[in-house]
């Protein structure tokens, strides 16, 4: 995953980077802010969402927002996708921005533990305390998922390591 060259990116290059990271609707956004009217990130009081985020990206003001954690609060709920009158698919733009942040390792620290868990066990959420909890309700210690299946763990590790995530050096 080649790092983005923040300080020299032109407006066109920022827009192209958003498109390349899965946010091709960025060029269709007309700043109506319908997305924000239904957005939990906006409602909860995070500063960077909807048209402000999309305008910063459209105008190439990327460097000044790269550290902002708002995008990591996106619930991927897709209310915005449902109502956007321009089919800009705002959720996809937010996640494209997240992926650009991730390339710079401008990642919420809370993202690391689930990533490491996913790589090791195949499950983003896992704790050994689960064994006791499961037995207390009459279930086997572990489910028949990847958590107890070495071959499945090797498969998920292959999938994670052979993509751009493998190049970040986090596994």
């Amino acid at each position, binding site marked *: *995953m080649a790092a983005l060259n923040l300080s020299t990116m032109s407006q066109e290059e920022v827009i192209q980077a958003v498109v390349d990271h*899965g946010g091709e609707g960025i060029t269709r956004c007309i700043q109506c802010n319908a997305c924000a009217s239904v957005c*939990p*990130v906006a*409602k*909860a*009081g*995070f500063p960077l969402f909807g048209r402000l985020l999309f305008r910063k990206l459209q105008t190439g003001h990327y460097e000044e927002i790269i550290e902002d954690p708002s995008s*990591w*609060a*996106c*619930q*991927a*709920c*897709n*209310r915005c*996708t*449902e109502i956007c009158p321009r089919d800009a698919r705002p*959720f996809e733009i937010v*996640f494209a921005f*997240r*992926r650009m942040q*991730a390339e710079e390792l401008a990642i*919420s620290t*809370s*993202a690391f533990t*689930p*990533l490491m868990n*996913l790589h090791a066990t*195949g*499950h*983003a*959420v*896992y*704790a050994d305390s*689960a064994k006791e*909890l*499961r037995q*207390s*309700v*009459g*279930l086997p210690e572990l*489910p*028949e*998922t*990847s958590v107890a*299946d070495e*071959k*499945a763990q*090797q*498969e*998920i590790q*292959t*999938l*994670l390591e*052979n*993509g*751009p*995530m493998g190049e*970040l050096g986090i596994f």
Partner: protein
Amino acid sequence: MEKCGIYLGCNIPFRAPDIEQSFTKVFPPLGIDLVTLEGATCCPAWGTAPSFDIDTWLAVSGRNINIAEQKDVDIMTGCNSCFGVMAEAKHMVEYNPARRKKLKESLSKIDRTFKGTSDVFHISHVLHNKIGLDTIKKNLKYTLKEFKIAVQPGCHILWPSEVMDIKEDNPFFPTMLKDLCQVLDADVPHYSALNGCCGMGAMRSTDQDKSFNLVKTKLFSMKEEINPDMIVTTCSSCYLQLDGAQKILRERGEIDFEIPVFYYTQLLALCMGFDAANVAAISETPRDHIIQKIQSEARLIKEVENEVA
């Protein structure tokens, strides 16, 4: 009996395994044979692969779907996030030939492929549209008459509706979970924050206080407008948030009430007569008192052959 692959995800088997038990109890009597998806992994959760690289997301989801394909079954999951992640992944590869080609290349590295023959459903889709309300009604042992329920369907089962095979008429005014609770004879009034987000997931791990703003809005709307006996949800993340956050908010003095929370199939299992020690045993907000009321002589409709509580 119809077969369906049961996809567990992470939160249900490791944090709320009594919900997993409720699946194993309720579905066979309702005519669904649960097929284990051995070796399934995380969907992958929104904060993992989908936040880094689309093709890695599709590969991990595609692998999970392929496990079901190999068993010739559809997938159903009780976690809204898992449902959203995998339904969107499947939709993306169905409409984007380049992504589909890349997915097959990725899966070939682990001797797998992707055929697209298995559909992804949420358990409430299966309960509402495949099993149907009449069949549920016939299997009930206890009635919820005169209980008032606040329903919480959760986000990913509602939006974006384009990726779903079974969907609400209007996702901003959902009715499926209301129907599923009404068939238990409960009263299910509307409240204004019905379609609001509970604040769990990425938001809670990014900023807990802001996340709690949302759950408080929801709890106050429920309490002030309809004063429910219980909250019922079909999302495991909403379950953990609504149940767990209430305890923290009470300790902080930010709320002065408690409303028991059930995942829908837990409540259904109780109404079908299954033992709460298996199907509704783990919660932060107490609910034993209401479980006792549900499974009482006075609420008995008829004897059924399920385990007697």
